[in-house]
């Protein structure tokens, strides 16, 4: 019985968990519920992946209505890839969250925090699972609203401003998206993505569609923080509670990338240039700008969380670059980097969250020599940093390798050189952190710290270990990314 309902269980389980967590109104019980719910969600996600790999596309009709009338959930290799990533990160975040949340959030709000965390997860999974353009908007809003709350729960007063700014920007993005969906509905008369694709075939060259694509792409670009629409992200990540930052940095933008890929490839066809619009050229330009400018800005930051947040914007540039290349290798590289970046950024934010847990600050000036007193935490941060640079032996290397091959395959040799050249910037900002935390004499703050508790170290090191593991034995993620890329490009998985 359960097997046939897997696609919807993916959303029901975290949603039910959110409801129960809210009803419990008790911090520890809410955490337990969240942990169990996210563990169950992860199990569902892996089961789905397994089934997709065995059987191909899985379709599920909500309420038993046909796709013309109702909402259809469609899990293919791409969705399964994202769903596994999001649910696994969510589970690790829950393990991590208990201690971290106790330290950062006042006791009466803890249950709400887990409710929001689970709602956010449910929304993100929903975007990946649904095959309905409007339903995707609903889940986009579910996850976004939960995200605004999560950010606002940060203990820094600036968290409120950051949340407010994200609220406005996110709403603009969602509105643009829904306008685009509306235009598509006008032209095709359906909201089901599968049917839209069928009906679009006869509508090539329609003005309305071009405008729809413009609105959808820019709307999603706001959500995924594509340069220059990224400015909401650094503050939001820097001031949110640590556990929330981990989840958001690793999953929220990634799901937006998934949505963008869905529209660019599945809906608007494999040839992502529509009519006169050189989308791939624009996207390549913006991606390259993202690889360089925010990374350069990261070098001049003093707050480690902000450094990592700005670096996220840069790393998103690599991912969108993979989409823009639009060939099998490049797209594999982009999706793989999406996966790897989630792992490494998750580890990095968990590590800096653990530092905040002990030292109470993420300002680089205060963290001199903290590697002496928190060696395991800082070692995980270092591994993540090396992966951000793309050092061989880490997963970052593998994904950049595929991106470069993709660029060469597309005949863009200069782009391959830019990809590697932009790593120089990562060397600078990672190098600054590594230098301060390891090689400076310990400051007063660092001397009084102890190593982070095991509950924080465990998920952090699972992610850091995965970063190393997938840098050496990359078969599994590469296989997933490659089959997702094949599906996006219209082939068999």
């Amino acid at each position, binding site marked *: *019985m359960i097997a046939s*309902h897997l696609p*919807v269980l993916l959303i*029901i389980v975290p*949603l*039910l968990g*959110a*409801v*129960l967590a*809210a*009803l419990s*109104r008790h911090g520890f019980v809410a955490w337990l519920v969240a942990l169990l719910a996210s563990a169950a969600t992860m199990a569902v996600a892996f089961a789905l992946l397994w089934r997709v790999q065995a059987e191909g596309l899985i379709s*599920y*009709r*909500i*309420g*038993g209505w046909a796709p013309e009338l109702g909402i259809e959930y469609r899990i293919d290799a791409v969705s399964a890839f994202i769903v596994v990533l999001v649910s696994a990160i969510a589970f690790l975040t829950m393990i991590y969250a208990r201690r971290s949340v106790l330290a950062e959030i006042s006791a009466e709000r803890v249950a709400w925090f887990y*409710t929001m965390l689970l709602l956010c997860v449910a929304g993100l999974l929903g975007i990946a699972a649904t095959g309905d353009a409007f339903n995707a908007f609903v889940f986009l809003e579910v996850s976004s609203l939960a995200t605004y709350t999560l950010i606002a729960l940060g203990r820094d007063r600036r968290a409120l401003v950051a949340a407010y700014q994200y609220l406005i920007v996110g709403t603009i993005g969602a509105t643009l998206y829904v306008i685009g969906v509306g235009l598509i509905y006008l032209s095709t008369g359906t909201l089901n993505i599968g049917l839209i694709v069928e009906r679009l075939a006869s509508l090539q060259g329609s003005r309305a569609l071009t405008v729809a694509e413009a609105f959808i792409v820019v709307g999603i670009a706001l959500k995924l923080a594509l340069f220059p629409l990224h400015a909401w992200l650094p503050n939001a990540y820097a001031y949110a509670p640590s556990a929330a930052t981990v989840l958001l940095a690793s999953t929220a933008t990634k799901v937006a990338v998934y949505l963008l890929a869905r529209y660019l490839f599945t809906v608007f066809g494999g040839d992502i240039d529509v009519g006169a619009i050189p989308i791939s050229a624009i996207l390549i330009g913006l991606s390259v700008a993202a690889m360089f400018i925010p990374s350069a800005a990261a070098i001049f930051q003093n707050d480690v969380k902000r450094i990592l947040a700005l670096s996220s914007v840069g790393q998103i540039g690599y991912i969108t670059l993979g989409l823009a290349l639009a060939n099998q290798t490049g797209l594999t590289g982009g999706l793989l980097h999406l996966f790897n970046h989630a792992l490494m950024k998750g580890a990095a934010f968990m590590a800096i969250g653990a530092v905040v847990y002990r030292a109470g600050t993420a300002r680089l000036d205060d963290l001199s020599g903290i590697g002496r007193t928190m060696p395991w935490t800082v070692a995980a941060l270092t591994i993540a940093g090396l992966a951000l640079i793309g050092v061989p032996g880490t997963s970052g290397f593998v994904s950049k390798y595929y991106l470069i091959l993709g660029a060469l395959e597309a005949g863009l040799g200069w782009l391959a050189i830019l990809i590697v050249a932009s790593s120089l910037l990562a060397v600078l900002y990672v190098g600054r952190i590594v230098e301060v935390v390891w090689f400076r004499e310990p400051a007063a703050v660092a001397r009084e710290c102890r190593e982070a508790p095991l509950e924080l170290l465990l998920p952090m090191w699972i992610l850091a270990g995965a970063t190393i593991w997938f840098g050496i034995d990359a078969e599994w993620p590469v296989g997933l990314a490659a089959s997702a890329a094949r599906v996006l490009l219209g082939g068999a998985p």
Partner: protein
Amino acid sequence: MRFDIVLRVATKFILAPLLLFALYVQFHGDYGPGGGFQAGVIAAAAVILYGLIVGLAPVQRLVPMGLLEVMIPGGVLIYMAVGIASFFLGDNFLDYDHLAHDAVHGQEWGVFLVEIGVFVTVSSTMVAIFYAFAGRGRS
């Protein structure tokens, strides 16, 4: 405002019809315009009106914040429970065909129950928002 006799008296007259109208909209939702969302807003409007007239403390005695915090997720829980119940009857999520002896009645029951969930959540959320605004600067 609680000393304005006109408002107080008028409110007393309006409250009961308001609540009754909310119930009407709720139960008539299957056949005509209406449903849990609208009904929830109308019911919440009654509570909010009462709060505006008598003040925050009395209305919170009537509808305490703790109740709202249970109602908000509770409504969602009802909704989901109905949806999940379909699982056990061999249908897809939110497919009510087998909730009753035949498909039409099943759908009717399903929608009816789901709308109750919507009502609970929407009404309590509206009131909670009112509390949040009205209580600003006090807590």
